[in-house]
């Protein structure tokens, strides 16, 4: 039975459980809800959750793990026949899966029944045209070994699905029934629902944390693999990068940091001043219009900023600083440069800085401002000497978060900064960053097990460590000084 039907059935059982338990609670309280421990809907919700949660969990796990189990079992059949390399094995498995899909289709459409499929023999029946009929094209004639494996595949899947259906529906019915039986006027349904709610929230939080751990682990494995092929000292201290034989990270890190610093030089003053204006000076009318308008900037996809860098800012800077430009200096030779990407990235970060800072400045108690104004300070003195120092930890946190974003930014750099990895102080030269090199190393046609491709993971790991350190530092600063003015 397909999962959709299973879901519908457990859904119906859950709704029935809700209605039933609610009714049972009401009748056990002689129709007066004041005789019940909890409101009737809590009894209903309790029964509903008791049926839904175990069955949904089992359904999800079973659906996720069944293919893995079948796969490994079928792989044994193929490997028993002859020794195969990894590549050959995966090719053979693909064939088996295709045949199995065809057979399953044949059963589903009623062309054959399960027994007929199981009795099929490659030397007797011509399987290929049958599969073709089902819309599954197989490259060559089906070998007995493959058919055997496919039959095993189909059989296991059939049994597995049947078991899954029975188990899930049984769990759903049993869980609901259990909760239904427990429903009585004295049963603390509200507390039970509360505990389940907490468990759900914990599960949500754990998923986020486990994902982070998973990402780190998957990167670590590949990074270690890379360092087996390429010496770590050459990677960390190498000053040259050509993407193939020389994989020194320093020029990329330099490009990343240089562009990020320029971005922050643009974004921090503008964003901070905008935040100060919005939170301290702007009238409610201006604020209600300007704040969302500023935050629209944050909603623009970075690729659009990249286009802006490529088509507008780069050529403009070239006209100003290039040969024959406004200033009569010849500092810039192409539109793609560190400064182009930095400025545009800075523009991208303005709403980020201003929005966070605005919230932080608003969180400074009004009593601080009153105290300062009451001593005869002007608004700007108040901001400079009282509001800003009080808000500083939060603002530093906001800036560090903006810095992490700048370091991780890719699209603007691809389009705005060029692709040359070099260690140079000149902001009008093209440079490149860690993120763009990760993209180019992985999208090339290099073998996925070579150092050229694996270096992407080492780069990603480096970047991850840097931004993680920045975020931790930002959190530390924010926490340390948070409650200073309370």
């Amino acid at each position, binding site marked *: 039975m397909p999962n959709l039907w299973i879901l519908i059935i457990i859904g119906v059982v859950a709704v029935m459980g809700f209605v039933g338990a609610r009714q049972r609670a009401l009748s056990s309280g002689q129709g007066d809800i004041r005789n019940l421990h909890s409101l009737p809907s809590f009894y209903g919700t309790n029964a509903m959750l008791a049926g839904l949660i175990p069955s949904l969990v089992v359904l999800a796990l079973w659906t996720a793990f069944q293919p893995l189990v079948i796969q490994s079992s079928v792989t044994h059949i193929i490997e028993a026949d002859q020794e195969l390399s990894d590549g050959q094995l995966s090719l053979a498995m693909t064939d088996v899966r295709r045949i199995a899909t065809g057979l399953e289709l044949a059963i589903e459409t009623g062309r054959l029944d399960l027994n007929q499929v199981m009795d099929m023999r490659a030397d007797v029946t011509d399987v290929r045209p049958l599969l073709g009929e089902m819309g599954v094209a197989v490259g060559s004639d089906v070998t007995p070994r493959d058919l055997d494996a496919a039959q095993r595949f189909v059989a296991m899947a059939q049994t597995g699905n049947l078991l899954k259906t029975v188990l899930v529906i049984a769990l759903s019915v049993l869980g609901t029934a259990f909760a239904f039986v427990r429903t009585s006027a004295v049963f603390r349904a509200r507390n039970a629902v509360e505990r389940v709610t907490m468990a759900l929230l914990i599960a949500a939080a754990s998923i986020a944390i486990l994902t982070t751990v998973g990402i780190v682990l998957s990167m670590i494995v590949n990074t270690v693999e890379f360092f087996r092929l390429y010496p770590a000292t050459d990677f960390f201290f190498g000053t040259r990068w050509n993407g193939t034989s020389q994989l020194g990270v320093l020029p990329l890190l330099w490009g990343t940091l240089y562009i990020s610093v320029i971005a922050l030089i643009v974004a921090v003053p503008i964003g901070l001043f905008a935040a100060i204006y919005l939170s301290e000076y702007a*009238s*409610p009318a201006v604020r209600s219009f300007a704040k969302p308008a500023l935050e629209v900037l944050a909603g623009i996809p970075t690729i659009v900023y990249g286009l802006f860098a490529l088509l507008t800012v780069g050529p403009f800077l070239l006209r100003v600083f290039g040969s024959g430009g406004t200033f009569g200096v010849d500092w810039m030779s192409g539109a793609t440069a560190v400064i182009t990407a930095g400025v545009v990235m800075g523009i991208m970060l303005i709403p980020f800085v201003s929005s966070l800072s605005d919230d932080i400045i608003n969180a400074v*108690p009004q*009593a*601080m*401002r*009153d*105290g*300062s*104004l*009451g*001593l*005869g*300070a*002007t608004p700007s*003195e108040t901001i400079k*000497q*009282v509001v800003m*120092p*009080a808000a500083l930890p939060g603002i530093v946190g906001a800036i560090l978060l903006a810095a992490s974003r700048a370091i991780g930014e890719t699209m603007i750099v691809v389009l705005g900064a060029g692709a040359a990895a070099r260690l140079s102080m000149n902001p009008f030269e093209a440079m490149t960053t860690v993120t763009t090199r990760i993209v180019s190393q992985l999208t090339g046609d290099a073998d996925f097990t070579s150092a050229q491709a694996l270096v992407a993971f080492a780069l990603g790991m480096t970047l991850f460590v840097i931004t993680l350190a920045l975020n931790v530092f930002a959190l530390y600063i924010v926490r340390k000084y948070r409650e*200073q*003015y*309370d």
Partner: protein
Amino acid sequence: MYDEPALESKVTNKDIKIAARNVQVFYGDTHAIKDVNVEIQDKTVTAFIGPSGCGKSTFLRCLNRMNDTIDICRVEGDILLDSEDIYDKRVDPVQLRAKVGMVFQKPNPFPKSIYDNVAYGPRIHGLAKNKSDLDEIVEKSLRRGAIWDEVKDRLHAPGTGLSGGQQQRLCIARAVATEPEVLLMDEPCSALDPIATGQVEELIDELRDSYSVVIVTHSMQQAARVSQKTAFFHLGNLVEYGETSQIFTNPVDSRTESYITGRIG
């Protein structure tokens, strides 16, 4: 319970420091203060009493134009400080607030050191010529705030680390450091325990020597203890204004009597 009559007769002859004429205050459409006339004397403690929401804090905040910071607030009528209209266009509210200091309901020390808290006003207004001058002002102000002995060994510790009563006395010292002529206090003891309240009240009594002090309070005992003049506000009206002893012993208006005897409030 009350100050002795000899003191009373002495203060009644003092100069008028602040005079309010036909003052109306509006918050949007709400008429918060209705036609208030009052004359506040120099070197006197004047108490504003009345039930919550009667407008006494609002009126207090008019006296140093702190209401300017509220967008929807509108003030009409004249308020004269030393015979000059403080709502005149030529008056800089910032200068005015340096002359008319304010202490708030909740202690609000800045997140700075004790020293910097007190030095804040003098620094802004350039009252100190050099460092030793500033040190002197800080010490003098902390002494006036009756907190010097408690903090002299930790002037560079954060002001937020003090107890509530110490914080409030620090805020008073901070206000005094700017050398105002009038000190406005908006329920300065409402967040303090009885001991700290006693210390602040003693302090207010000492401050009377140099300043005109206006205090808003919910405690009638406090008004009776610290003030020479009392104004009773009710529903935005100034109901009665006179010598504290007279207000508390022999009020003219029946509403005043009801309030101080606890029948309305």
